[in-house]
């Protein structure tokens, strides 16, 4: 049932393979756990349809590291916890027509944002000096190499840094929700949101 519109596009794409280019999708994981990417892959055999339907650009899925063309849909996993995340997110905004926050981390910081409200100094101290699992760092060395991303004062939801067009809640969002959303975005149909698939956990 869900597959109907997609197969229709797929078929029409096949027919007009030469004339119509596939929508381009990029994905990234900022301060996330890759669980949302896993969920994207969790659409089972529909993945084959997906690969035929869209083309992946910058994404861990195909290991393309930089944008090589204009992208239609950018999927963002994870919130924004450091300066590199900010940079990546901004470049996604620049290259993608549509940006989607995928998962609780992207939407509201998610579990990494549990540190929000605690001063960042305390977090660093706990992680590198005071925490119970810190044993080897006898000299109390702090990560201060210029090559490292700089830590932000808190973990920001993506839409507080750049404009985000759509939000797919869940931790991770159900595979069906991601699938439905992609289909809707590609076909331009309104997104279906069955009760069981929109959940925050």
């Amino acid at each position, binding site marked *: 049932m869900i597959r109907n519109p997609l197969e229709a596009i797929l078929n029409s794409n096949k027919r007009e393979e030469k004339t119509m280019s596939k929508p381009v999708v990029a994905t990234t994981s900022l301060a996330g756990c890759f669980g949302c990417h896993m969920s994207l892959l969790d659409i089972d055999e529909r993945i084959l349809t997906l690969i035929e339907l869209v083309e992946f650009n910058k994404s861990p899925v195909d290991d393309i590291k930089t944008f090589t063309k204009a992208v239609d849909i950018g999927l963002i996993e994870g919130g924004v916890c450091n300066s590199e995340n900010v*940079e990546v997110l901004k470049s996604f905004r620049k290259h993608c027509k549509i940006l989607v926050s995928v998962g609780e981390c992207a939407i509201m910081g998610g579990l990494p944002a549990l540190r929000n409200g605690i001063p*960042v100094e305390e977090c*660093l101290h706990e992680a590198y000096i005071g925490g119970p699992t810190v044993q080897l760092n006898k000299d109390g060395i*702090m990560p201060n190499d210029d090559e490292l991303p700089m830590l*932000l*004062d808190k973990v920001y939801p993506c839409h*507080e840094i750049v404009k985000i067009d759509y939000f797919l809640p869940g931790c991770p969002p159900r595979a069906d929700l991601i699938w439905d959303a992609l289909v809707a975005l590609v076909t331009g149909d309104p997104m279906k949101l069955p009760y069981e698939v929109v959940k925050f956990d």
Partner: protein
Amino acid sequence: MENTVKQIVEKYNTNRNRLMDMLIDIQESEGYISRDAIATLSQLLEMSQADVEQTLSFYHFFSTKPRGKYAVYLNNSPVAYMFGREAIKEAFEKSAGVRFGEVTSDGKIGLFDTACIGMNDQEPAAIINNMVFTRLTPYRVRELVKMMKEDKPIEELRKESFGDGKNYLPSLRSMVSSNIRRKGMILSDDYHFGTVLREKLPTLSPEGVIGEIKHSAIRGRGGAGFPTGLKWEFCRRAKGDKHYVVCNADEGEPGTFKDRVILTEKPELVFEGMALAGYAIGGEEGILYIRYEYRYMKDYLEEVLHKMRKEGLLGTNISGIEGFNFDIRIQFGAGAYVCGEESALLESLEGKRGEPRDKPPFPVERGYLGYPTIINNVETFATAVRIVQNGGEWFTQFGTDDSTGTKILSISGDCMFPGVYEVNWGFNVEDMLDMVGAYDVQAVQVGGPSGTLIGPDEFHRTLGYSDLSTGGSMIIFGKQRNLLRDVVVNFMEFFIDESCGSCSTCRNMTQVMNNKLKKILAGKGVANDLKDLKEWGRVLNASRCGLGQTAANPIISSLKNFRPLYEALLQKDKDFDEGFDLEKSVQASCSYVGRVPVFNHH
């Protein structure tokens, strides 16, 4: 200490409804309410400690930590700032050696901010151990702090002459000025107190009194404007073993101070009005609920009541009318604007947190302790006396068709002669500004923060229930003022601090809107923000009481009438900015790990 608490509890008959009084007495005698005091109180009253604390923690003037031998409460209303509050604050901090919110290490001096203390016509002003010091200057502050350090009795700190009017009286001895600048039927000196009780009531039935009040078409002077006659009638008809008369002297709306002046100059008129109301509704007990900021009037008001009892104007069979018994007690608040809301006031009277009640039922049906109760403003009671004296018909010749009688305005801000002015309803703003000597006016805040901010193109409007309705607060802002930064934010923060917190809307939306306003003020605003503010403000309409329902007004009304001020702050080249600032957000972590932030924008 335990003994002190015991005595205090006994003084109020171990009655939980008098918890406010007990807490006030403990706070005053000990300078704070200690853990031990809470433990003793809770034991004696058979409440949990946390339950005592839930009342205690609601009120600004109660504290579980010592507030200092001298506790200084400096008003933080916009008008205080306009008259030099920054310099006063600095002088206090410098000479005392602590910051606001702290107490000196020797426990002597505590400095605290406090919301408008009803002295807008003589700012900057502070309350120190219940004594009001007005028109402060840095020199005076240094002198005051010096004397506090020398442990001088509070009376000795007083160097100014007493204020005008009755402020010199031995039981008041106050530096506060009444600043009456225009008199009408209430503030005039041509009424002989007691005339109505003595001469009129014997000729009038309770229904007759209500009839006159109804005929006069007077509406409540506290702001909401409910027809007073109807209220009294509903209450008289409501079934209950007892009926109560409550006078609302909470006067918490920033910029209002006329009730202070009425209670200083004409307290007998107010009490007579309450007795009159008691007669009308069939009630024998009256309570004056008055804000703690006016604690300095306690002895004076008690003395007036005492005198009235002696003269037979309070007590039993008043004016020889069989069964007309009435007496009044005074209940102080403890620093909570919302307690001016009538049902919150009742909760506070019952010794609880000042959380407004759900309505219906209304207080006239179920009020104090569940009994039918009328609650009226100070000015309403005072006016009622003149109405009954001269008849409802006489009263209607003053004011306009829909707003009869006079209104006492509290006028402050950028003008030559701040003070109280009693005018007929129907007065227009332009005339008012000329009356008080206000030139180069940018805006007038009508009715306090919960009212409206109007600009010159609306100065032709008139004061009245159908046009500019007001409880009487008029704050004038000159051209030199920054309305958004110095007024609107201040008012929003006032509501944030004063919300009782019960409603999800009022507790949170004020904060959300103020954050957005501050973002705009920080130069991070975009056009969409103004749309958001306007829409988000509507959510507050779903709040339980007037505080929440009007809490967006500072933003909404300035946005409506002073939109260019907002627009000038917006970023023209951006349509998205949620206020994120990369450089600021990495500062703390970089300095902690010892690295210099580098921003290489590839």
